[in-house]
C-alpha cells in the first residue's frame, strides 16, 4: 500500500502506526507521529490503522537554540 511518509510516496507492508515505527527501526522515545496531520500518542499507535494515501510524518528532536 502506498502512503506519504515524511513527504515522500512510499510502499509499505504494515497496517498500523506501531508496526510502521517498528519497521523503520526507530528508537520510539521522543518520536512524534502525525497521522493525516493529527498527533497520535504512543499508546494509540497500535490502534491507528493505515489506509492507502494516508500521510504520516515522523518527527523527533534535534539540536537547536
Amino acid at each position, binding site marked *: 500500500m502506498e502512503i506519504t511518509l515524511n513527504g515522500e510516496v512510499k510502499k509499505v507492508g504494515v497496517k498500523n502506526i506501531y508496526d510502521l515505527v517498528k519497521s523503520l527501526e526507530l528508537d520510539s522515545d*521522543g518520536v512524534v507521529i502525525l497521522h493525516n496531520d493529527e*498527533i497520535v500518542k504512543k499508546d494509540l499507535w497500535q490502534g491507528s490503522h493505515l489506509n492507502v494515501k494516508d500521510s504520516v*510524518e515522523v518527527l*523527533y*528532536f534535534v539540536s537547536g537554540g
Partner: protein
Amino acid sequence: MDKLILGGVEFESRLLTGTGKFSSKDEIPKMLKASESQIITMALRRINLNNRDENILNYIPKNITLLPNTSGARNAEEAIKIARIARAAGCGNFIKIEVINDMKYLMPDNAETIKATKVLADEGFIVLPYMTPDLIAGQRLKEAGAAAVMPLGSPIGSNRGIETKAIIEIMIENIDLPIIVDAGIGKPSQAAEAMEMGAAAVLVNTAIACSPNPAEMGKAFSLAVKAGRMAYKAKMAEESRYANASSPLTGFLHNN
C-alpha cells in the same frame, strides 16, 4: 543565590543553554554539568529516514528541563502546532515560542508571537516567547500569559552582545515578569552585563557551543551570570560625570 521562577517552577541556575551548533553532541552533557544550567532548548524536525541523526534527547540528563522551541514557524498557527507536537512527545509544558519570517536578521515577529502565546498559555503551556525588544509588545505578552519575556540582545548567533540595551532596561523596569536576554550574547562579560541590568536570566547557545571547549566556556558563563546577579542584588554604585575621590585628599602637602 535567589531562585529563578518560571511558571511556578523554581530553578537555581539563571543560565539557560541551547543544544545547537555543538561539534559533538557528547559535549552537551559535559557542558550542562560544568555550567550547572538546568534548562536547555532543542528543536523539532522530520526524521531524515535515509541519513539518521541521533535523537538529541539521548544527550540530555533526565533532571534537565527541556525547552523545545518552535523554530521554523512563520506564523502563530505553525508555532502552536509545533508546541502541541512537542508536548505530545512528552517534553513537558515548557515552550520557547519563536516565530520568524526575516531570514537576514532572524528577527522574531512580535504580533504573531503574542497570538501564539495567548493560545498556548490558555492550554497550560509555560510559554517563554523570544521577541524583538519592545515595551508594549512585552506588556502584551504578559497579558497573553507568558511566563517570561525573552528579548534579543542582538541577532541570533551574531555574538555582538546587548545592542538593544536601552530598550531591554526599559522592559526590565516596566514589565512585571522575568526578562531573559536571549540571543546575541557572545561572551561571559556580556552575560554579566545583562544580569547587572536586572535581567532574570540569559539564554546562551552559540557562544558556548562554538567554543573549542564548551564545558569550560559553560562554566565561565555560569560564573559571569552569578557575578552579575550578585552585583544587581547588592545594588551598584551610581555613575557620575566627575571624579569622587576614594582616598582622602589630605592637604598636608599643599596649602590650597
